Every structure is written in structure tokens, then in C-alpha cells.
């Protein structure tokens, strides 16, 4: 690993952390407290333990005692800073001890599995079976009161927390394929544990530490408050709180001052901890600070006029542009998409991963998360209604009603904790004023419609009890629940087996005729297009490069990219043929070359292709292509006429 790359990584991680305002505030407060505590012995403070009965219970801002004095006349400021030192030191040490032993147990137990795992986990379970603080009390009772013993107690009761967390993560990692790959690369089990798994667990350990250290400080304070931790005259925050209790009414500041510091300390550590967690593990992000809006923001410079096609079409996109803001930069994921879907029509949208198919689909119902996504141009009309101007309530009505989605992974639609029946009923009742029994009957009919055997019983099933194909059928049933006019199906069969895929395609084709539904069908595979689509639109690097009737496009593609996409599909019975692969990959989003985006991979590219924007031009009444030199020679004459 090059160290420059590593340090760059760290700098940007810090940058990310500082981007989070609460975490930064936490960091500032924490650093201030830490610094003060650290340099406390160097500061011109009074002796924290020197009593002075004459000066007892002086209020804050008294002469010589900035924060006043306690019941024995000791200077509160001095005690506070020295106390904070002790509390922090104990909290940090306890965290380190708990993290070390807990993580070690978690790692070993998660990786060993079998009886070793059972043994360690039963031990951990036993520790956890006792009420938390009671256990700490018991331990201190056995060891005798004192700061060090309190430290051991706190560390010990926190070991299970680390062990469980780390074991869970390790278990998940140990099943990952890179572990097998490391074994096949010749690594021993110990090497795998410490060089393959540990680096992946480390961020979790740090996260767990940063989120528990605050509690450990609190717990230490708790023990000291009860007189079991720091012993007089030594000050720590908990014992100061305890001292303040007896004079709470005539001199509340004695208790309030250490209380406030504990609060500040724990709060700042937790804020910082959350920030660290968000930076290290974006998946765990609480999202409280950057929750995406319920609908994609629309920031068009101008509102285009309603296109003529929008009147008859079920769906009409014109010039649609959706962009992502990355810092100051704005990157267009799709630039100027025109699509029209007629009644009962199925339009296939084909292209490689990353070409913008899903962004196009998600823009329609405002499902692109904002931030960072925004619709920055164009228009979307659904049955003549301007969706970009519609209010949120109307969009909610449309979603799952007249316009519904089927996604690649059924589990993104289905909630794991509710039965299929409950979810269908919920979907129906969100849009129709039906009572539960009626809705249940309808749900059963829907499952029958998508040919799920024994529908009544399947209503009681949870998603995980169904096979992938059955789950996708349930999703289609859900999409049909409220008589959808338009179904947006984003790679609905990509994750399925060939036989199941064939059935789902047949089913969708049948249902669309029965129910007179229009479909926007998205796929990367030209092989599945003809099963369903009347027309296709081919997407490349955020633009439509060709569109037309499926049969014609398949028989005589005009764009070189379309030709390649068709040719790279392996076809049964042509096994001897060398597959026609498209070398290289599509340009990264936002790095579209000038001129034709496909030029770097195109065998027919000439100089003219690399200059200026190339428009989508009509080939004939039904076909359009974005290419200066379309493949069909007869048509080429037409374009340049």
C-alpha cells in the first residue's frame, strides 16, 4: 500500500468529518475539554484537595475562585479540571481494555464458529444476563471500592458489547467469498483472521469505541457518585457530583458544574462518534442530517412548452435532464431524453450499466434522491399531465396507483417483516376505499392473476419464504393492485433464472394485454427485449442513441452501438461463434467526450464524429438514430439528403 494514498484517504476522511456541523461542534468542545484537562497541572490552579473551611460554598465568580468552592472550601475549577483528567483517563482506559478483549473474543468466536464459538458466546450471554450496573456494583463489591477497580468493572461489563458487535460483523465477513479466495491464495487461518478480516472489522471497532466511550465515562461517574470509584479526597467528575448532592439546595452550583461538564463531555464525544461512524461507514448513516427529500427536486432554468406528442401518449419525456451535484460540480447523468409510450405499448429501454436507464426511470416519479440528484431540464407528461409541475400530493396518488414500479430486486419492494398479504392489502387500501376483507379478497385475486399457486395460503407467507421468482410475481401483483396505467419495470428479470425469467416475461406480456397497461421495460440484455417490447430505445452515456420498432431495430440496427449490443448476446445454437464483445467501457458519468460519446469504441468513427453535438435524427417515420454514419447504407443517403 502506498503511504501517500493512505494519507490522502485520511485527509479526505477528516474533510468529510468537518463537513458535518454537529460532529465539528463536538470535536471543538471535546478538544477544548481535553486540552484543559491535559494542561491542568501546568495551569495556575489552586491545589484541588486543599480544604479551607473559611471559604466553604463560595458561589461562582468569587474572588480567587472562578467557579466557587465546595462544602470543604476546595476550589471547584481546580477540582473540575483535575477531576475531568481522572474521568477521561478512566473512561479511555476502560474503553481500550473492553475494545481489545471484546474484539478479540468477537473475532475468534465469529471466525471459529462451532463449539468454540458456542462456548465463548454462552460466557458472554451469562455476563449480559445480569443487569448492567448491578454487575458493575457486584464486581466492585468483590474487588473493593477504588478507581482502578471501578475501571476494571466498567471494562468488564462492556466486553460483551464489543464481543457481540464484532462477532456479528466477523460472521458476516467470514462467509464472504474473499475469505475463500484468500485461502485459495495460500493464507493460513490465522493470517486470514488478522490480515483479511481484521482490516475490515477495524472501522467497526473504532465506531463502537467512539460511540461507547461516552457511556463508559458516565458509568465511571456513576460508580464514583455512589462512592465506589474515586476515593476522597481524589476528585473525579462522579465523586464531585456526589459531593454536590448533600448541598444541592443551598449551593446547587457544586453539583451543577460537574454535571454540566459531564454533559458537555459525553455529548461532544457522542456527536463526534456519530460523525466518525458516518464517515467510516456510510451504510450506518443515521441520515438525520442529510435525509433525502420525498421527491426529486426540480430546478429547471426554463419550463419547456408542452410537446405535441404529450397529448396522446401515456408517458412522454422530452429533453429530460437529471444531474447530480458533487460538491461544486454538477454532473448530468442523463442529457436530453425523449421517450414516448402509447396506450398498451411496451417500450424497451436498453443499455449497459451506468448508461442512465434507471435514472431515467426514477426521474419519472421523482424517485431520484435529492440531494444529490436534481431534474435540471425538460418535461415529463403522464396522460397529458405535467408531472414536474404537479404537487407532492398528486405524485403520492400516482405512485403505486396509476404509475407503479417493479424493481430488479423484489426485496427492495417487499418488507421482510410483513406477510405478502398484509403488504398487498396495504398497497390496495392506500389507493382504494376498501374495507379489509374486501381488500384481502382482492389481494388473493391478484396473486391468482400472477399465477401463484395456492394464493390464499401464500397470503400468509413472508417474503423470505418465497423463491426469487415467486417474490417477483408478488411485486408484479403489487404493481397491478391499483389498476396501473403504466408499469415501470427496471430489470425485473435480471436476477432470475432463465426458466423463471421466461415465465415472468410471458406473464407480463399477457397481463399487459388483459389489463391494457403500458410498460417501460428496462434491461441491459437485447435477448429479452423481443419477448415483450413493441419498440426499443437504446441508451448510451445518458442519451438515447437509437429508437424504433423492436423488430426493425433488431433486424437492421442503424447505430454501431446497437449492433454491438445485439451481437454480444450469446445465442443458443451458435456456440462456435466468437462472441462480438464491445471492447472498453462506457465513459464515466460527466466525462462524455465531445461529439459522439461512442466514438472511442466505434469501429466506424471518423474525425467528424469527434466534433460537436450529434443530434437524434429521424431515419424514417418510426426510427431515429444519433449517428453521423448510420449502418444501413440505403438509409445513409436519406439522412444526408
Amino acid at each position, binding site marked *: *500500500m502506498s503511504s501517500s*494514498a493512505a494519507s490522502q484517504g485520511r485527509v479526505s476522511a477528516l474533510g468529510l468529518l468537518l463537513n458535518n456541523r454537529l460532529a465539528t461542534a463536538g470535536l471543538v468542545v471535546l478538544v477544548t475539554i481535553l486540552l484543559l484537562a491535559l494542561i491542568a497541572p501546568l495551569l495556575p490552579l489552586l491545589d484541588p484537595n486543599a480544604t479551607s473551611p473559611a471559604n466553604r460554598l463560595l458561589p461562582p465568580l468569587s474572588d480567587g475562585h472562578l467557579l466557587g468552592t465546595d462544602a470543604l472550601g476546595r476550589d471547584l475549577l481546580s477540582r473540575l479540571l483535575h477531576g475531568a483528567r481522572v474521568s477521561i483517563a478512566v473512561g479511555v482506559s476502560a474503553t481500550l481494555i473492553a475494545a481489545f478483549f471484546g474484539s478479540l473474543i468477537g473475532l475468534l468466536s465469529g471466525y471459529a464458529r462451532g463449539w468454540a464459538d458456542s462456548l465463548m458466546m454462552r460466557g458472554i450471554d451469562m455476563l449480559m444476563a445480569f443487569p448492567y450496573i448491578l454487575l458493575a456494583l457486584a464486581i466492585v463489591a468483590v474487588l473493593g471500592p477504588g478507581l482502578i477497580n471501578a475501571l476494571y468493572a466498567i471494562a468488564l461489563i462492556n466486553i460483551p458489547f464489543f464481543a457481540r458487535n464484532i462477532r456479528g460483523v466477523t460472521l458476516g465477513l467470514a462467509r*464472504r*467469498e*474473499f475469505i*475463500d*479466495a*484468500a*485461502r*485459495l*491464495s*495460500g*493464507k493460513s487461518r490465522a493470517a486470514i483472521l488478522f490480515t*483479511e478480516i481484521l*482490516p*475490515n472489522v477495524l472501522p467497526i471497532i473504532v465506531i463502537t469505541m467512539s460511540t461507547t466511550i461516552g457511556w463508559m465515562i458516565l458509568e465511571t461517574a456513576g460508580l464514583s457518585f455512589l462512592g465506589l470509584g474515586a476515593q476522597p479526597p481524589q476528585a473525579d467528575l462522579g465523586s464531585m457530583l456526589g459531593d454536590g448532592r448533600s448541598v444541592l439546595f443551598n449551593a446547587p452550583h457544586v453539583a451543577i458544574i460537574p454535571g454540566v461538564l459531564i454533559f458537555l463531555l459525553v455529548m461532544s464525544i457522542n456527536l463526534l462518534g456519530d460523525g466518525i461512524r458516518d464517515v467510516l461507514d456510510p451504510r450506518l448513516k443515521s441520515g438525520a442530517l442529510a435525509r433525502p427529500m420525498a421527491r426529486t427536486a426540480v430546478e429547471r432554468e426554463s419550463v419547456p412548452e408542452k410537446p405535441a406528442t404529450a397529448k396522446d401518449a401515456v408517458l412522454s419525456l422530452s429533453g429530460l435532464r437529471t444531474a447530480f451535484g458533487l460538491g461544486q460540480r454538477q454532473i448530468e447523468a442523463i442529457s436530453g431524453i425523449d421517450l414516448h409510450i402509447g396506450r398498451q405499448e411496451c417500450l424497451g429501454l436498453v443499455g*449497459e*450499466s*451506468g448508461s442512465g436507464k434507471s435514472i431515467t426511470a426514477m426521474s419519472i416519479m421523482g424517485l431520484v434522491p435529492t440531494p444529490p440528484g436534481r431534474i435540471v431540464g425538460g418535461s415529463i407528461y403522464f396522460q397529458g399531465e405535467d408531472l414536474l409541475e404537479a404537487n407532492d400530493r398528486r405524485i403520492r396518488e400516482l405512485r403505486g396507483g396509476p404509475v407503479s414500479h417493479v424493481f430488479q430486486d423484489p426485496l427492495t419492494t417487499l418488507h421482510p417483516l410483513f406477510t405478502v398479504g398484509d403488504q398487498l392489502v396495504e398497497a390496495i387500501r392506500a389507493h382504494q376505499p376498501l374495507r379489509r376483507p374486501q381488500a384481502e379478497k382482492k389481494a388473493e385475486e391478484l396473486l391468482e392473476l400472477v*399465477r401463484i*399457486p395456492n394464493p390464499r395460503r401464500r397470503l400468509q407467507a413472508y417474503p423470505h419464504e418465497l*423463491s*426469487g*421468482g*415467486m417474490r417477483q410475481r408478488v411485486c408484479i401483483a403489487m404493481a397491478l393492485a391499483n389498476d396501473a396505467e403504466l408499469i415501470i419495470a427496471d430489470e425485473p428479470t435480471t436476477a432470475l*433464472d*432463465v*426458466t*423463471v*425469467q*421466461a*415465465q415472468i*416475461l*410471458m406473464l407480463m406480456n399477457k397481463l399487459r394485454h388483459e389489463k391494457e397497461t403500458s410498460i417501460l421495460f428496462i434491461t*441491459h*440484455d*437485447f*435477448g*429479452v427485449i*423481443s*419477448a415483450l417490447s413493441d419498440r426499443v430505445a437504446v441508451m448510451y452515456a445518458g442519451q438515447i442513441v437509437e429508437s424504433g420498432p423492436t*423488430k426493425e431495430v433488431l433486424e437492421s440496427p442503424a447505430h454501431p452501438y446497437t449492433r454491438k*449490443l*445485439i451481437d*454480444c*448476446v*450469446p*445465442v*443458443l*445454437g*451458435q*456456440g462456435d*461463434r*466468437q*462472441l*462480438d*464483445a*464491445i*471492447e472498453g*467501457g462506457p465513459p464515466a458519468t460527466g466525462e462524455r467526450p465531445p461529439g459522439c460519446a461512442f466514438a472511442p469504441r466505434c469501429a466506424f468513427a471518423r474525425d467528424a464524429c469527434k466534433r460537436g453535438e450529434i443530434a437524434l435524427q429521424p431515419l424514417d417515420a418510426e426510427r431515429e438514430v444519433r449517428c453521423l454514419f448510420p449502418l444501413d447504407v440505403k438509409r445513409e443517403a436519406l439522412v444526408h439528403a
Partner: protein
Amino acid sequence: MHEQTEPMLQAQDVERLFGAGRTLLGRPKPAVHAVQGVSFAVRKGEILGIVGESGCGKSTLARILAGLDQASAGKVLFQGQDLAAAVRRDFKAVARQIQYVFQDPLSSLNPRKTVRAILETPLRRLLGLGREERERRLQKVIDAVNLRPEHLDRYPHEFSGGQAQRIAIARALAAEPKLIVLDEPVSALDVSVQAQVLNLLDDLKARFGLTYLFISHDLAVVETISDRVAVMYFGRLAEIGPAQRIFTQPRHHYTRLLLDSAPAPGKAIMVPESESGELPDPYNPPVGCAFAARCPAADELCRTRHPALEPAGAPKHLAACYHPPVGSTAHE
């Protein structure tokens, strides 16, 4: 061609049982036969394709054949030696000969290791190469899979699926194994990228004289690359034979269904309406042919007795079906 040579890999009645044994309280745990009675041989330089739908036992079989898992019964012979014994003796020695490429390229690469660290491990741990020799081999390997030297210092997540799979292939290739087990190596990839990887695999096989076991749920993919094909259904072999023959004259109704379901540009898909696509319950397996519930030709015999794998009218073509489909398909 290689009639006389001893097979490189031989599976003899391989069986894998999951979940058997007893709970802590002594109650027997329900057992699932993931793989049952699988026998075949792979010659040096051959590509055997294994097709079947998810859950039919392909990965389980593949892991056993690569020494990552042990058969509950039956035997795997690698170059005439018992593989399970060899694994117990020295796993590294086996890993020098047999390598594995996983389905999901990103999950088979440690996210916290650079490509260099990932590719150097087998060179160091399996071959014990010194620094210079390692560097030389590294260059050779990444060159073979069309990666560039500057890719070496990047992390897996910086690559697209196709590139990541090429890294995974490079890792498997690094120790110069004789046999590579490829478990759905292109299933997670786009069709366009899939073609790149398939062509690369073809090329590598020729250049390094490799033998492949190529697993996929997609018949068309298997056909483009395999010399012979084994069709698996519910943990058993339904049919095995020369690729050409399987695709033109399938002798098992499941193979037939697979052929009919395969999509292709311009092809309308026609599978029977009654076809449910559901596998039998593994905890309650059918007595007879596992495909009977979905088979148009099933009769009493099929439902009561399990059909054995028997010669199906052409050399080296075996099928386990009482009433095989007749005639040839349109896939010629």
C-alpha cells in the same frame, strides 16, 4: 482426442448432505441433499459446462471439486489422487493445482486490499516467489487479463464489474493452476461485459493450457464456451454429453425447458403456461424423478422410481429420463 489419457478430474457418486446430525437436545436435524450421486470425468484441456437453476447444487458441487468443501459420500479424484485426502494433507499443494473464480467479483476481492496485495498473495504464499520474480509474474498476469499496471495500486471498489472479475481471474491464474473452477463467473455482469470476459477466458485457456469447469445458469453462455455440458436438476445430473448434442437433441425434459426458455434477440419466448418454475421442497424430496411435477411427459413410473443416468443414443451422451423428448430442437 484425449481418449487414452487419464481424466484430470473425476467425480464418483459425489453426495453432499447439509444440516444432518443432532441438535444439542439430541433431536435429529432435518437434512438436505444439496448434491447426490454425481459422477463425471473431465479430461485435460477440456471445458465442462454445468448448467442448472439457482439452488440446484451447482455451487456446492463446485466447492467440493475445488477442495473448499468435502463430500459427505463419494469421492473426487484429481489426477488419480483422492482430493479430500490431498486437502487434508496440504491445502496449499491443492490450491497450486486447482483454483476457483467466484460469481460476485466484488465480494471475492477484499475491499481493503489493493489489487497488488490481492495478486501477490498467491505468488508469495503458494509459490514462495522472491520480490523480483513476483514483480515479473505480476506484470505477466495482469497483462494476460488486459489490466494496466496503474490498476495495481487501486482498491476493488474503484473497478467496474467486468474489471473486477478480470482481477479475480488474474488471482486464480497467478499460481498457474491446471484446473480452474468457474462458478457463474459472468452471471453478475452486463451482457456486453460478459462477452469480454468469455472471450478472455477462451483466450487464457488456449494460452496456458487450462482445464475449466464452467458453471452457469445460462445455457447460451455455457454453449459458447463448453466442449461438454452437464445439466443439473435438484442436486443430480439430469443429462450430460457433448455440447452440440445436448443443444440439438436434448434427452431430458428439463434440458428441453431450458432451451425453450433461453432468450435471444428476435426470439419470442414460448414456455408452457402451466410451467410453475418451482423446485421441489428439499426437505421433502420427491421419490421419483425430481422434475416430474413440471414435466409434460411424466407418468406413474416417473413419480415412483428415480431414473438412472443411462446412455442416450450417442457416444458419451447420458440422460436420466424414462420418456426422453424425441426429435431435435430448432437450435441447430
